[in-house]
Every structure is written in C-alpha cells, then in structure tokens.
C-alpha cells in the first residue's frame, strides 16, 4: 500500500472513493500513475456491515447537515436530509442496489430529441452512445453485470415474481431480473449472491460490486494508490496561472492538512462536488472554481422517482432476497403520446419494516397508515426511475447561514419538479398499480420520493464552455488540470440508474488523464 508525501506534487488527488472516484483511482494506478484518494468517511469493511436499517444508516450514511428548499416533498419531510447517500470508503456503491443499465442513444441528445421544453435547461451531451459503448463494455465486465458477458441473470425472488406476473398480464414484454452488478455465480474472486436482502446496508457476502472491495484493493495492490479515510476536502488551491496545485483537507483529528497535486479530480457526489468548487472561490475565481459559466451547482437532477406498493391476500415477504433484481423496461422508451417526454423503468424494491414505517408516507399517522403496515408481510414493492428534466433553478448553492465544523458553508439543495416529471410520475403510479391489480392486489398505494439516492448534473458536460462546467472528458472548461469524475458530470439523467455510466466515464477519463499527463499537457 502506497504512502505519499503531502508535498509530492506529482500525484493525482481524487476527492471521494465512490463509483467515480474509486474507479478512476484504480484505473490510474493500474497505469502506473500515483494517486491519493481523500475520502471524508471511514473505512468500514464487509464483515462490519450491519443487517439492521437504522444501525446501518448510522454506520454508513452521510449525516452532516445539508439544507433544502423548493416544492419537492423531501424538503417538507426531510429538510436536512436531501439525499440518502454514503460517507465511507466506497461511497454510495456500499449502499447501492446494483442495477446497471446503459443509456439509450437519444438520451444523450435530450435537447435535440425533446425540443426546447419550457422551464427546462436541456442540453445534448458532448458525447454519443457510440463513443461511450466501448467503455460500457469494459465497465460491465469490470462490475460483472448479469445478462452481459454471458453472465446469467439472478434468480427471481418473491417480490420479482409478483412484479413479473402482473407486468406480463398487462402486456409488458421486457420483464426480467435485471442487469445487476451482483454475482449470479462466483466471479472476480467474489462469491455469488446469498439472497441476504440487505443490499442497501452493504453486501456482507461481497457478491455485489462496490469500489470498497474491488477497485480500491486492486488499486492499492499496485503500490500506486493511497486511500486516506476520514479526510474531508475543504478547498482546492491554485497558483497564479490558474492551475490547481493541491487540496486542503481536514483529517480525522480535526487538523487541516494540505496535499499537493499535479491533477485534481473531484468525485464527491453531486451535492458535495459543486459545494467544494464553490467553497474554493478565490480572487481569481470569485464565483467558485471552474464556474465562469455560472453553471456549477445548477441543473441538479435526482430522477423522477416514487414507489408503488401492493398488498395481497397472501404473504409475499418482499424483503427476502436481492432488493432490486427485477425490472420492467417497456416504459423506458421515448413516446410523447403518453403526455411526457423521456421514459421510466419500474424496478423491484423492498424496505424492511423500520424504513417502511419511515418512508411509506412521511408525516402520516392513524389507521390508514398503520393498516398498511399491518399487511407488511403481504406487500410487494417497486421503485420508479424516470428521467427528470434539468432546470437551471434546481441547484446546489452554499447555505448563507449554516456552516460545518470547518466553518465552510454547507450545501443547500433547491428542487422543484418540472411539469414533465409530475406527468410522468402520475403515469408510472397508474401503471405500477395496474401491475399489482392484475394479480389480485387488494390495495395499492403510491409512496412519495425518498431522499435522493441518484444525484446528478451539478457540474454538467457541455460542448460550449458557456453551457456547462466540463468538456467531454470531464475536464473543467476553465482549469485544465481539474477534472470532475462523478455523477455531477451528467448532462441528462436518462431513464436508468446512473452508476454504470459513472463507472464507464471514469474508465474513459483515466485514459484521457494518463494520455494528457504523458504528453505533458497537464
């Protein structure tokens, strides 16, 4: 395991060890490039994960204060918890469920395909599906995605069987146990899924891909990667020429440290990455680093989500087995005759009783609420993942009042659903209920979006520097040795879970960075 000097200015410093940062770190290390990953959270290994929702939340989740505003219901229900993501080595790939889907071609061209939607700030990506395809292939192999690379699909659990039966009954065709970065058979030194059912709480068996026990140890084994846990980046510094020179961070003891760098890559997830850039404002960059466009923090996307639960006369035990191995893809297509642009997927989802009580209908009480929980064992559940529309006003800013323990302003998240999101959610709620009704549900209910698990778009890629923060390689338009490597790069969100795309972009970015370094461009 490497241990680099803080004054070593030849290292690449990556902020965050999740899907983007963890992957980039390993890919660079494999190419012989020296990397220091600063990770705000602790290092918690598989055997320490807890099969208990609240205890696991306390162990892994990002709980530092954030603030919210806007008309989204999360603001009302969870004013200081806009997102449910991880603060630990491995980032949100510790919590994630493993659903790994590619964008469709038109989803890289939303402005062209959907037109100038009023109230939205749509933009085509500066890359195409064809350009990303070879990297999708690499990512699927790296992550061991089922139904790719001849890897069989996972077996369906009870929750899936209900979804499948209902979906087929109402005529859906593309229904299966998903493309999952979860081993259906032993692969890459990790065993196969034991159907434990606590995928969100960290996979104790290691069947599910997470940078924590794949990318990171592989990178460390090269001797080129050092991961520093409990290291919270607070500011990126630059020199008089405008090149970044290092990152100031707070270590586990609360002391400020400075790691020098040749290149800095920010991968703190879509709330913290723009916050770090904005908090790095200087005389030369008064509006924040890499923010000449004013787009840092804007165009925040969280997917159009919601859930549908169905109650049946007989038990389902939806919590048994893989949480999200089940999908209906028929509605992911582009078909404006439904009354909205973009599409959505329906994926199996289950929560344990404690989280069900917290998320079913936050704020609710009385018999309508408790009678639903009384039938917990007889419930099936699904989650909606739809494309939401980028809006300039949906954004992460620095809270004018609330500061963290370093005195740095916290991230404040503003979000209003676009009318297209609302129309799509309504459609999805109806279709979800129809699926369960078709197999005899006695009661179905829509549940509102949870705190965001998918956080995207706040440092988006754009062809022209005035429209976004990054070029097609995730390099900032303004500072050539500063990159962004997480989901905040997304120009649009697509009707699918984001992580496969984040990982593909990170693999591609490693090629870019190493090429530029060897050519002496950065």
């Amino acid at each position, binding site marked *: 395991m490497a241990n680099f000097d803080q004054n070593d200015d030849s290292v690449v410093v990556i902020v965050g060890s999740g899907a983007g940062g963890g992957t980039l770190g390993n890919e660079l290390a494999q190419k012989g490039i020296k990397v220091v990953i600063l990770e705000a959270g602790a290092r918690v290994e598989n055997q320490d994960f807890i099969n208990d929702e609240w205890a696991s939340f306390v162990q892994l989740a990002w709980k530092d204060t954030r603030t919210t505003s806007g008309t989204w219901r999360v603001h009302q229900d969870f004013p200081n918890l806009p997102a449910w993501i991880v603060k630990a080595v491995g980032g949100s790939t510790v919590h994630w469920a493993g659903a790994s889907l590619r964008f469709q071609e038109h989803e890289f061209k939303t402005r062209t395909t959907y037109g100038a939607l009023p109230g939205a700030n749509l933009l085509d990506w500066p890359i195409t599906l064809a350009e990303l395809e070879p990297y999708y292939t690499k990512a699927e192999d790296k992550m061991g995605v089922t139904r790719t690379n001849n890897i069989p699909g996972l077996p369906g659990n009870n929750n899936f069987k209900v979804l499948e039966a209902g979906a087929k009954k109402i005529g859906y065709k593309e229904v299966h146990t998903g493309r999952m970065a979860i081993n259906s058979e032993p692969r890459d030194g990790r065993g196969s899924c*034991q159907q434990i059912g606590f995928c969100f709480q960290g996979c104790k068996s290691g069947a599910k891909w997470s940078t924590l026990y794949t990318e990171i140890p592989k990178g460390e084994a090269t001797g080129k990667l050092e991961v520093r846990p409990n290291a919270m980046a607070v500011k990126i510094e630059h020199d008089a020429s405008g090149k970044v020179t290092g990152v100031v961070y707070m270590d586990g003891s609360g002391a400020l440290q400075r790691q020098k760098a040749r290149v800095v890559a920010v991968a703190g997830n879509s709330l913290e990455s723009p916050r770090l850039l904005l908090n790095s404002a200087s005389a030369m960059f008064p509006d924040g680093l890499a923010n000449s466009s004013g787009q840092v923090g804007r165009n925040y996307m969280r997917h159009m989500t919601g859930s549908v639960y169905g109650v049946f006369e007989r038990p389902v035990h939806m919590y048994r087995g893989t949480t999200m191995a089940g999908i209906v893809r028929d509605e992911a297509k582009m078909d404006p005759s439904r009354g909205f642009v973009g599409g959505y997927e329906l994926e199996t989802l289950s929560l344990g009783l404690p989280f069900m009580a*917290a998320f079913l209908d936050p704020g609710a009480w009385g018999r309508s609420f408790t009678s639903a929980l009384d039938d917990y064992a007889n419930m099936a559940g699904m989650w909606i993942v739809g494309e939401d529309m980028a809006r300039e006003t949906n954004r992460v800013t620095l809270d004018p009042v609330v500061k963290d323990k370093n005195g740095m302003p916290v991230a404040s998240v503003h979000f209003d659903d676009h009318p297209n999101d609302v129309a799509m959610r309504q459609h999805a709620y109806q279709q979800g209920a129809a699926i369960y009704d078709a197999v005899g549900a006695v009661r179905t209910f829509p549940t509102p979006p949870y705190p965001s698990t998918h956080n995207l778009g706040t440092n988006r890629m754009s062809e022209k520097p005035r429209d976004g923060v990054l070029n097609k390689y995730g390099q900032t338009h303004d500072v050539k040795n500063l990159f962004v490597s997480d989901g905040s790069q997304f120009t649009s969100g697509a009707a699918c879970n984001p992580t496969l795309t984040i990982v593909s972009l990170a693999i591609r970015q490693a090629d870019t960075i190493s090429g530029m370094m060897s050519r002496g461009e950065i």
Partner: protein
Amino acid sequence: MREIDRRSRVSRRSFLHASATVLPAAAAAATGLGISAEAAWAQEAKTLKPATMATLVLMARDIFPHDHIGDVFYIKAVMPYDAKAGSDPASRALIEEGVARLDADAMDRHQVAYLAVPWEQQRVEILRGVELTPFFRKIRGDLVVSLYNQKDLWAKFGYEGSSADKGGYIHRGFDDINWLPQS
C-alpha cells in the same frame, strides 16, 4: 411457502430479561394491564407526572394503532421521555405543556382528561386539532423509530430482520411464493 409465526415471541420471562436495561422492572408488569397513571411503570417516572406518562402511551397508540401489538411496546417507545425530561428542561416543558393542551381540549369536548376519553375516534379528533404543533410532531416523528425499531416487534409484522447470520434467504424461501395465478 415459509411463513412467519406472528404470535409474540416475547414471553413474560424473556421480556423481563431482555428489557431489564431499558425498562424499570415494574414497567414489565404492565403487560396486559390497561394504560393508566396508577400503573407501576407510570408511577416509576422520575421527572414526568405519572398521568403524563400514561397519556403519552395512549397517544402513541392512537397515533400508530396496531391491534395485534400489546401496550408494552408503546410503553417502551415513550419511556425514554422521562429520562430526557430529567436532563433537558425544554423537553420536559414541551411534553408537560403538550399533554396539558390535550387534556384541556379533551375537557372542552368531553369534560374528562384525554386518558378518560372513551373512544379512539374521539381522541383522534383531539389529536387532529394539534397535529401541526411542535409537541405532536416531535412525538409522532420519534415514534416512527422508537416504536417500529423494536426488534421484538418485527416478527409480529412478518418481518424477519437480520439475515446474513442465517445464511441469507437462499435456502430460506426467497422464491417460495406459491399462490400467484399461472399465466
């Protein structure tokens, strides 16, 4: 399919044992008794009034009524307020004043304290009247965790809890559903 035995797994004895650290011994004796200020667990409160404790328990049941769940789970959920009130005068005031308001509303409508209002529906109407107050929001918000995060209660809802220690569900019924219509 493998179903869960939803009868209480907490025998009196194991309850006494398991909750010794959480509850005063007398509280356990409440199992089966009604919710009243005279109950031993209510009498053991050190800071809050016994009637306040009892009102909180009934209020908890009225907020999240589950007829297959014994009072003891609601008692367990609200018991920590006594210690909290002991160390934090602001929470003590919030609770005592909140309960006084419930009693005042009950007096206005039914000429008795909240605890003595006979029908759940009548008490729920009183609660509807205060549901936007900080007192109600605090109690409801805390209960979501203090009630539903009691492991002893999970099996009663058909939830099996921790699974990795039992080898997951791969051999324990992850796909044993047998009643779906054949298409």
